């Protein structure tokens, strides 16, 4: 399944990237395709493109701050968690997100 995710934390140096890595690793282990956009201290990195958003089944927001350019995801299924949830249990976050699709 194609999953997209956005990670963001207040200081934008640690949590943001740890959550992104945790999600990538868990998605790989569970056999899903994932792309993670990070909204850290450098601003948006690895930006999700319009066609990717269109094709994605579900979008995970693992954020403690506002999602920048949230309007891109209008009408999509969104699973919203805090940024620390994927760090402690990324697989659960992904399976919860997927359970929203079906």
């Amino acid at each position, binding site marked *: 399944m194609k999953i997209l995710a956005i990670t*963001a*934390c*207040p*200081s*934008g*140096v*640690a*949590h943001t990237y*740890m959550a992104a890595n*945790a999600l990538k*690793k*868990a998605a790989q282990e569970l056999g899903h395709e994932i792309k993670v956009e990070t909204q850290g*201290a450098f601003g948006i990195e690895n930006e999700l493109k319009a066609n990717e958003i269109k094709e994605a089944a579900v979008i995970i927001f693992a*954020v*403690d*701050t*506002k999602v920048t350019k949230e309007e891109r995801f209008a009408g999509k299924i969104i699973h919203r968690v*805090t940024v*620390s949830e*994927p*760090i*402690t*249990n*990324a*697989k659960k976050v992904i399976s919860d997100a997927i359970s929203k699709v079906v």
Partner: protein
Amino acid sequence: MKETFEKARVHLMTGVSYMIPFVVAGGILLTIGLLIGGGKVNPGLSQTLVNIGVYSFKMMVPIMAGYMAFSIADRPGIAPGVVGGVVANEIGAGFLGGIVAGFIAGWVVNQLKKIPMHPYVAALKPIIIIPIFGVGIVAGLMLIIGQPISAFSKELETWLKSMSGANLALLGFIIGAMMAVDMGGPINKIAFAFSVGMLNQGVYAPMAACWIGIMTPPIGLALATKLAPNKFTEEEKKSAIPALIMGAIGITEGAIPYAVADPLRVIPSIIVGSAVGGALALILGAQAPVPSGGVLVIPFFIKPFMFVIAFLVAIAVTGFMAAYLKKQINENVTAEKGLNY
């Protein structure tokens, strides 16, 4: 209720995240200015750097309030939020006033957005109506409700600055413990936001305790893996160096893998170490004007040597306590559920 709180937290944290660079720049430049001036403001470069630092500090509250409102009401929230923050600064309501200004601005702008308007003039709304009424209403409200906040802020400031002995130790103890308890989670962020806010009032002590609580957990646990290698899994031992580095640059989350694997023994160890270290740092008179940068910014602290002593004590307490509390492990069993991220 929980959801409302959660949303409020996201708005506050969005504001804080945009504010942090201003605090870092302000804190470091101001300190360099003071160092050049030999501990005080001297004419020339010292004065110039201190001034720049102060300008940057002055932007803290307006930026925070502006981006809180941005988080609540999107783009049109920024102007009313920033001006609300400036008013909070002007009347001395400081950081607390800024938080109030941010929420008010976001709410007011969201209400203004709902005003029905004829399609012909609808374009006027974002460029004229919302800025004028948003800024006007928010600034007006802040001038009124900012007053009690200002009085409270000043009380708090005087109280914190006059703290000594047992009270000061207690403050350091609580901040240290809060920073460590959830390793970067909501409780940690509340203590952090408080300490950053106090920098704006010129109270630098809480931040010193904050730093102890930020850096001690991962470093103390890295030490524990060396003290009692047979009580940690191979993977945990291997992540000691990364944990050490994360701790040194100010990322408490480096402790999370250890805490997840054995919360009941690890979390008390990091809480006690950080709390004791925080209390000690404040008793020894350490203060920190900088909220970001890890060990690299310790030289910019006030009484950096005292800070280091407290920091080492905190690391030792956490390290020895975790090494003592942890149980001998059977690698095969624990490796399964050890690190799950």
